[in-house]
Every structure is written in structure tokens, then in C-alpha cells.
């Protein structure tokens, strides 16, 4: 079948402003949107620029706005979109560098700001630290994050003020705050107890459906808010 792709284009070296270009391509219902982009780049216009790597929803390179919603281009199939007209734009809230490529540095800065690493300075045992399956399960959901930015760049609070650390950074903090082996929960909670921390989340809920890893993001943020309020991690 034939589909029409309407793709956001901006080349800072030649364009004064962004515009859209339409491409008509032959496609199968099982094609990934990424396959269509590759097809356009390979056979219509080699200048089309976008990031991609693993092509199956694990590396997190190809977050973009497809028909007005954030997806990974490799994890949304044509048949899932229920239309033959597809608009593809860069994710919002981050500066566009070229076409579908945005500046990811502010996103990673926020990630790095919440101590997204394991802290435990107690002497290491000779073998593994023990953790029950239940303790491990407590933070399982947030270990799935691939830092694609689909959540943060779907968040109106982040669009309104990009000083907000955003859902992805809170998810990263959650993964450690609720890990029974970690010892820096209090410090992370203090970092997030800030006007640009969890309180910018107004539970608008855009992030959760945007997550290609199906992480319950709003719930995770709620748990962090509750831990700040109660000082308890249960």
C-alpha cells in the first residue's frame, strides 16, 4: 500500500526556517516507521537525518513525534497507526539540530543531576549482596528505562520550563531510591525535593503512555513524592 509521510525538515546550514516535506512510499502494514525513514533516506533523499541504532526498541536512539505522539520509530508499526498519512517530527522541548535530531545534552544533564548510580560504601562481601526477590521486585519497573526521552519530551511541565528535571530523571532516581542495597536515598530525595524536582509534576500523565518500555512513570513519581513527604521508603 502507499503511505504519505510528512516529515519535519530543518537543515541549519541551508534553511532559514523549518518546513515539512511529503514523501509517498510503498509500505507493508508490518513495516516499522524506522523502515520507512530508512527507505526515504536510501531512495528519495540522502540528506534526511535522524538517529537510530538497534531498531528494536532497546537502544533508545530514535524517539520522535509520530502523528502527534512520542514513539520510538523502530517500535511503532504502520498497522498500529491506523492511517496511511504519517506526520513525523522531532521530540518537543529540546533544541532541533537538524531534521529529527535534537540536542540531547540538557536531557542527559538532568539525568546526571539526580545521582543516577549505586551508592553503598559499606565493605563489600566476598560474594553477592543478598536481596530477596520481593526487594528486587520493588524497583524492577524503573530498571527498564532506556533514556530515550519519550516521557520527558511529552511532558507539558517540561515544555513550560526546561529546568524541570523531568520524568526520566525521576525514574532514574526511583530505581536507586527503592533498591534495598543502596544507601543514598535520602540525598536523592533531597535533590528532588525542589521546585524543579518532583513538584513540577502535575500528574498530567502524558509520560506514562509515551513510554516505549511501559514503565508506570506517573506511579513512580508519586512514590518518590510520597517518600519525600513521609520520609519512608515502603
Amino acid at each position, binding site marked *: 500500500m502507499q503511505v504519505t509521510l510528512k516529515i519535519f525538515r530543518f537543515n541549519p*546550514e541551508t534553511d532559514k526556517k523549518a518546513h515539512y516535506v511529503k514523501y509517498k512510499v510503498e509500505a507493508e502494514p508490518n513495516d516499522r516507521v524506522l523502515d520507512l525513514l530508512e527507505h526515504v533516506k536510501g531512495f528519495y*533523499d540522502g540528506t534526511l537525518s535522524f538517529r537510530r541504532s*538497534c*531498531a528494536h526498541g532497546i537502544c533508545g536512539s530514535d524517539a520522535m513525534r509520530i502523528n502527534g505522539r512520542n514513539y520510538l520509530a523502530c*517500535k511503532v*508499526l504502520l498497522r498500529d497507526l491506523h492511517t496511511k498519512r504519517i506526520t513525523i517530527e522531532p521530540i518537543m522541548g529540546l533544541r532541533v539540530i537538524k531534521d529529527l535530531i535534537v540536542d540531547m545534552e540538557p536531557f542527559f544533564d538532568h539525568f546526571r543531576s539526580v545521582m*543516577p548510580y549505586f551508592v553503598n560504601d559499606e565493605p563489600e562481601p566476598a560474594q*553477592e549482596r543478598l536481596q530477596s526477590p520481593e526487594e528486587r521486585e520493588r524497583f524492577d519497573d524503573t530498571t*527498564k528505562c532506556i533514556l530515550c526521552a519519550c516521557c520527558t519530551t511529552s511532558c507539558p511541565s517540561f515544555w513550560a520550563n526546561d529546568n524541570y528535571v523531568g520524568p526520566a530523571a525521576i525514574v532514574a532516581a526511583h530505581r536507586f531510591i527503592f533498591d534495598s542495597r543502596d544507601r543514598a536515598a535520602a540525598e536523592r530525595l533531597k535533590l528532588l525535593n525542589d521546585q524543579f524536582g518532583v513538584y513540577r509534576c502535575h500528574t498530567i500523565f502524558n509520560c506514562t503512555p509515551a513510554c516505549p518500555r511501559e514503565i508506570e512513570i506517573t506511579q513512580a513519581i508519586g512514590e518518590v513524592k510520597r517518600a519525600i513527604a513521609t520520609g519512608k521508603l515502603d
Partner: protein
Amino acid sequence: MKKHQFEVVVVGAGGAGLMAALYASRTATTAVLSKLYPTRSHTGTAQGGVGAALGNLEEDHPEWHTFDTVKGSDYLGDQDAIEFMCSEAVQAVYELEHMGLPFSRTPDGKIDQRPFGGHTNNVTGKPVPRACFAADRTGHMILQTLYQQCIKNHVNFYDEFQVVDLILSNGAAAGVVALELATGELHAFHAKAVIFATGGHGRIWEITSNAYAYTGDGIAITLRRGLPAEDMEFFQFHPTGIYKLGILITEGVRGEGGILLNDKGERFMEHYAPKVKDLASRDVISRAMYLEMKEGRGIGGKRYMYLDVRPETVNKYASLDGRKRPDGSPYAVTGEEILQKLPDIVDFCRTYLGVDPVSQPMPVQPTAHYTMGGIPTDKFGQVVIDEQNTVLPGLYAAGEVACVSVHGANRLGTNSLLDLITFGKYAGLKAAEFARGAAFQPLPADADDYIRQQFDQLLNNGGKERLSNIAAEMKSVMFDEVGIFRTGEGMSLALEKVRELRQRFQQVQIEDRGKIFNTNLVNAWEIGCLLELAELTTICALNRTESRGAHARDDYPKRDDVNWLKHTLAWFKDGECKLSYKPVVITRYQPKERVY
């Protein structure tokens, strides 16, 4: 050209690169250069587990792991290096856990383990649970954990810097040249030690589990600088890729009891590997699938088989096999347990196939997966450049790009992640140690000349050939003729074709003339790397007139230890390929017939 100076430069930010960086940065100024953001690296797609004989569920020993790896390698692995890796494994996994890696847990709180292909109890010959796992995203957890630790330790990252050349000076490594993707500028990174950790080149083949980024940059760069590649004829095809897409379905599915079935509903692996059946090593299973399909027993006569992990199937065969849980009760699973242990596999199948593995079998076919060959190194990651294993001072390689060789002719599942953490660590330690005692070699003034010539040629050649056609033709002929089964005739055809494509590539068209994120130019340069490696792979495969591990020839169906128990070394010089050999290190295990 901008210049930077670090004692150690690491190229690539997957598991091996990040591990190297963590260790090197303890004592030396260290920078990591990666063409992707580190968390985009291909390590993240590894699923099933990392091999280590912790013995958390059943008796196990590093010696058994060593023997299984030697046997899996079809006796082409160097036994000193394999023994080193398998005995380091236990401590390495504990170390990852101490870094916070969220392994799945046993009821008593230890790291959980599952069986994997080729890993056995050496007394009974039965599968042993040796793969330490974090659900079915073990690679993701390793990559994230190592990146997190790098952030904690303030490692310097140059993200989206694509390394395109190696600088050698006075016979030693002196740095690398990198293209900053965001600006199109070239940078020289002056270093005392360089560690290549750039991964493999599975994008040569049409059906592949490998990321777009897997274009063999490291091997291509070192070949162009006159260094050899080792054992390039050995490339692994994983038995279970999603039909047509090649996306990996972990061997862990079979570890949890999943069964491969043909069109008649037969568990065909019983005929090919009577003892361990669906948990034979990957080369054995891929060949069995190929033969079944060739004889018309693919599903509906097509080129795929079913991988069935529905609880009723798992429980039926577990009962027939007499499989037991650690407490001695019969092994059985429920749909919820499958979901809990294999959540990503379930998600992939639902997303890409519209199939729910808990209630339907998965259509699978062999998929290009892993580069056993690569840049020759010793067990400390030092690059060695000839038959006598002469070290090139200051140059290191680790992970899939390197050929130690611990995988020989066929890698065992879970040993890739083990390879990354073990040899990444030692490459980092050794590079930093070397840097302490070494001076910077002079940086040549024309360090970027060679890559400028390459880019000029790509950009200014008249542009008649479409890059995507060249790439597609390479992938197709390589999958058909230099794949799971090979013949002299087919490979000669492939060699002719690849050489024609390399000629046509001289007139490849680059439409993007800009500097900023010129992915058109970068992709072309990468396809150039793949074409060279495709040619070299084919030459080496044609040259080796035997069948061993992943290199299976219809015209030479037997392993030939008299003539071929040796590693291939290959150089490209002035467009000509030169081949030589070096012996396999054999310590405790004399080669014998390989039966599963």
C-alpha cells in the same frame, strides 16, 4: 583540526569500553569516544545472561565452564585465555553486583542463574544453570550499571564522536582521529594508549540481530593501518531471530524450557543433539534448522521454525526429559512465570509479530549475530600483530572487536558479556599501567590527512551509485553464500560480487554536502568498512578447507585438525590480501570429536 590529549583513549562505550574506562580512569587521564550515546551501545541488547560458575543453584566449577567453552569453540579457542576468562568470571559477576547491577534473585537472595546452550555439568553431561541473569535484559543492566558508575567516577565522555582513524607513530599507538558528528569537525586525540572497543560487524548480513551501528569500524581502521585481523571466517549465526526481522530471541527461552519444532511438530533437535537437544551450541542448532528447512520441514515449507515456550509445551518436554527444580520437584512453569522471566521477549513478539508467546509459538530463523574474529590480542587486551604475537605498544582491543581468542570457531551463549567485562577490565588496567611508564609519541602534523582523503573521495567522485543498493546487494549475497552453510563455488561467487561492489562504491553518491550531522557521509564510510570486512571474511572462509564451529562447508564437511587447528591472520596490503597462521594454544584439553 582540534587537538586533545589524554593518557588513555577508549573508542566505543559498550560494555568493554565502559569497563576499560572505569579501570583506566582510576590512575590515568581517560577519555571515551563513542559514535553513539553510551547507553545506545549494542551491549544493551544482550538478553539472556552472563556466564559464571557461581553454583548458586547447582554444583558448578570454573573448570567445567572452561571445558565447555573450549568444546564450544570447536577447539579453536586459546585454552590459556579461556581458563583465565572462566576463572575471572565468578569475581567479575560479584563485582558487577557490587556496582549495583540488579540481577534477578533466587528465593534465598542470591544471583539467579539459568541454563544456556553448551553449558553443562561435566560429569552428567546435562545442562547446568550458569547464566547469571537480570530478567531478559542482562546486557541492558550491564550497560546501564557501567555507564552509571562512569558518571559517578567522572569519566570524560565525547559522545557522538565517530573515530575514523588510528594514529601510529614510531611503531606505537599515538592516538585517534574522530569526526564530531554535531559539527562535522575532525579532532585528533593524542594518547599514550588507545583501546578499541568498537564491537562487531553483523550488518554485513541481510538477516541480522545487530544494530545499525555494528559496522566493524575498529577492525576496518586497524586493517587500513596495516594491522592484521584474526579468524575472520568465523561468524556466528544465532538460531532464533524473529522471522524476517532478525531480532534476537534469547537462548534463555530454551533455558527456561522452550522447544524448537518443525512443520510436523517434531522436536527435531533430538536427532541432532540427543543429549542436550535444544540446548546444544548455537552453530549446531542453526545448522540443524537450515537442514530441516532445506528438506521442506520449515513451517508451511517456509524458511522458519517454531520456538515454543507455551507452558503446556515446556511442561510436556520437561517431564519427558525428567527436568527437576533445585529442590528436586519436577520442573514446570506457568504463563505468569514466562512473563516474569522473559518480559522483553514477550513484548518483542507482541510488537513485531502480533504473537503472544505465552499462547502461541514464535516463528524464528537463524540470524547473523556475533563476530568471533577480530583484532588479535593477548589475554590482557594488548594488540598483537604477527605470527609470533609481537605486541604493538600502546594499542589495546577488548570485547567483540577483539579476537583473544576465547570464542574460537563458535561462541557459547553468555560468554560475550563475560568477555566484555573481563577483557574490558584488563585492557583498561594494562593501558593505564602502560601509560604510567610511557611518554607520548609525537603526534604527526598530518594526522588527519588519510581520513580527509577518504572523505574527499566519497564526496567528490561523480556519484553514480546509490549507497542503499550497494549495501543491500552485499547483505544479500553474504547471507546466501557466506552464511550458515558455505561452498567453494558459492563463496567464489560472493567474492566476485563483493569486489564488484567495492569498485562501484568508488562512485557512491553522497547527497548531503553539509557538515552538521552528515549521516549520509558517515553511513557511506561505514558501508565502506563493511565491504572491506565482507571481502576479507569471504577470502578467509574460502581459504579454510574444513568445517569447524560456525564455519560449515558442504564441500569440506569434516573438521581437519591435521591441517587447520590454527588461527588465520589476514592483512590487506595495497588492495591485496595476505594470509598467515598462528598456532592454537592447547593446555589441558586435547581436541576430540564434538558431540552434544
